[in-house]
């Protein structure tokens, strides 16, 4: 079947779906495709109101259909079979085509999300530019935000460009200004701040535990005991001491061995925690599947009205 999105770059045979890079041909084809796409957009703008729901429903359905087919359609055992050795016939072709298409289709969502990211950044800029313009509370901080945003974007691209032109290895030797800027802003600040924010949880977990783990209700008490055992089992020193004590009573006594901290924690984990998680997980999985079905078949409306 037709590799219309380069499903199988294994054989770059030229056909109507592609064109050699750097030639006018590819640019023309891309240009036409873009025009067609925006033509479609224009058509949508003109579309009458009653067609709106069916149109968006159709898009959702087709998008979902791909994965459903991948699931239901017979799958080739070895999707890497060279094309000349592949069995012919409609069913086989379709199944191999699906298998080849997976790596391609997998990218759609995050390409689209990337296009949409502009919206988010735009709203961020709008809010803060307004603040500065209207001198609202904290407007100086909005300036800080905008400046660091511009700085990071600039150095990001600059460094990226230099690496493309000179090659990464050269840049790592020469360390031009771009490299300094990007390294300081990204590695030196952004990444460190993320780690710092992440580590704040340690403090919150302490205060939360101190507040919540009180033997007030049955539930709180159970929570408390389970957590204590789990925490003790995290401390190698404690485990070794406790288990050592047990073993001192009789190393080959199978019954006693059930009371080593690791076995107790293990028992809780395997026979109480695992099934508990699994039960929740079944529910969540079903919920997701059900919601997926409802969205795919447009049974559920996304949005208020």
């Amino acid at each position, binding site marked *: 079947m037709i590799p219309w999105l380069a499903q199988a770059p294994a054989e770059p045979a030229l056909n109507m779906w592609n064109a050699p890079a750097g030639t006018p041909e590819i640019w023309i084809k891309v240009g036409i495709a873009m025009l067609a796409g925006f033509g479609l957009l224009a058509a949508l703008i003109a579309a009458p109101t009653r067609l709106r729901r069916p149109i968006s429903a159709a898009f959702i359905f087709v998008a979902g259909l791909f994965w459903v087919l991948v699931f239901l359609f017979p799958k080739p055992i070895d999707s*890497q079979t060279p094309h000349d050795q592949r069995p012919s016939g409609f069913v086989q072709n379709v199944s191999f085509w699906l298998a080849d298409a997976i790596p391609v289709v997998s990218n759609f969502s995050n390409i689209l999300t990337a296009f949409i990211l502009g919206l988010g950044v735009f709203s961020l800029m709008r809010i803060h530019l307004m603040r500065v313009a209207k001198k609202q509370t904290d407007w100086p901080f909005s300036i800080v935000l905008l400046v660091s945003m511009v700085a990071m974007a600039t150095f990001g691209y600059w460094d990226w460009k230099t690496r493309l032109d000179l090659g990464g290895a050269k840049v790592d030797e020469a360390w031009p200004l771009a490299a300094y800027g990007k390294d300081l802003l990204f590695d030196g600040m952004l990444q460190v701040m993320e780690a710092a924010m992440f580590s704040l949880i340690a403090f919150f977990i302490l205060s939360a535990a101190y507040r919540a783990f009180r033997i007030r209700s049955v539930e709180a008490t159970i929570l408390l005991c389970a957590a204590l055992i789990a925490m003790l089992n995290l401390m190698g020193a404690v485990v070794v001491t406790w288990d050592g004590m047990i073993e001192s009573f009789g190393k080959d006594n199978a019954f006693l061995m059930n009371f080593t901290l690791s076995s107790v924690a293990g028992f809780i984990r395997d026979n109480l925690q695992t099934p508990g998680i699994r039960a929740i997980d079944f529910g969540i999985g079903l919920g997701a599947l059900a919601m997926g079905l409802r969205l795919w078949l447009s049974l559920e409306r996304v949005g208020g009205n």
Partner: protein
Amino acid sequence: MANDKTIWEKLQAIDRRVLYTLLMVIATVSLFFKVNVPTKPGQPTKDLYRLLVDADALPEGSTVILQSDWTQSTRGESAGQMEALLRILMRRNIKFALLSVADPQAPLVARNVIRAINLERKAKNQREYQVWEDYVNLGYFPNAEGTSNAIAANFKTAVAGRKETPPGSTTPLDVFQSPVLAKVSKVEDVPVYINVTGSKTSNILIERLGGRVPFAALVTGVMGPETLNYYQSGQVKGVAIGLNGVAEMESLMEKGLEESGKPPVQSFAGETNYGRGMAYYLALHTCLVLMIVAVVVGNVAMVAARKKK
């Protein structure tokens, strides 16, 4: 007595900031003591160690896929895991193809760890790991689900077009020309698929790989319970969980592994085995003690206060 009633009530409501300060001080102070805290490796870690070091499970010189999905933000646990893992792989001359799906920075972070371990080997004048010869960096792939799907369906096309520059050369070549991936075209071709992750990419992989290749995971403590779930159902062959996992790995590397009914697994005694794991392990203990004490105090105070009423 009026005033110890107030004490009990005070102890029931210690100010957050007091607890925070205590935690910070205790953690910092413990870092300055170098102690090898004893450990008792759990079965998941033992299985992981066996999977990585046992010659039958992972023959010398074979290639593994190493998916590194962590960055600065989980450095505390993941870095230790990565270091321990790389020490083992390099000592056993296991080639590895490095890739990441979680974060664009992950490959860079991973490369820094490789560099660090290489320096360590250089200092001991052992052979340094060469890019292209011993490992290739396939780089970052956006969209975890999609990539895992693609890799499971067809590894070769999933990572097609990724290039790496052989030493001495200046022109990047297709990674599949390298000694590392020469014999690999689908995931089934590698003896083990390893994932060092700070997020849930391991779950995604497990779902998509569907047991086509033995899967080993080194995950953060948070992901532990979920991953153990898959370990129970045999979808993961071995797991190291969090700092504990690191400390256990490190002591296994020091002492080797003896299990009843299974062949013993070698140790790497005499090498640098204790690393970041042990460096942090004492602090972890003291912090946990603080937490337990805080909880106990809170409860005792509550009960005592009730008694008074």
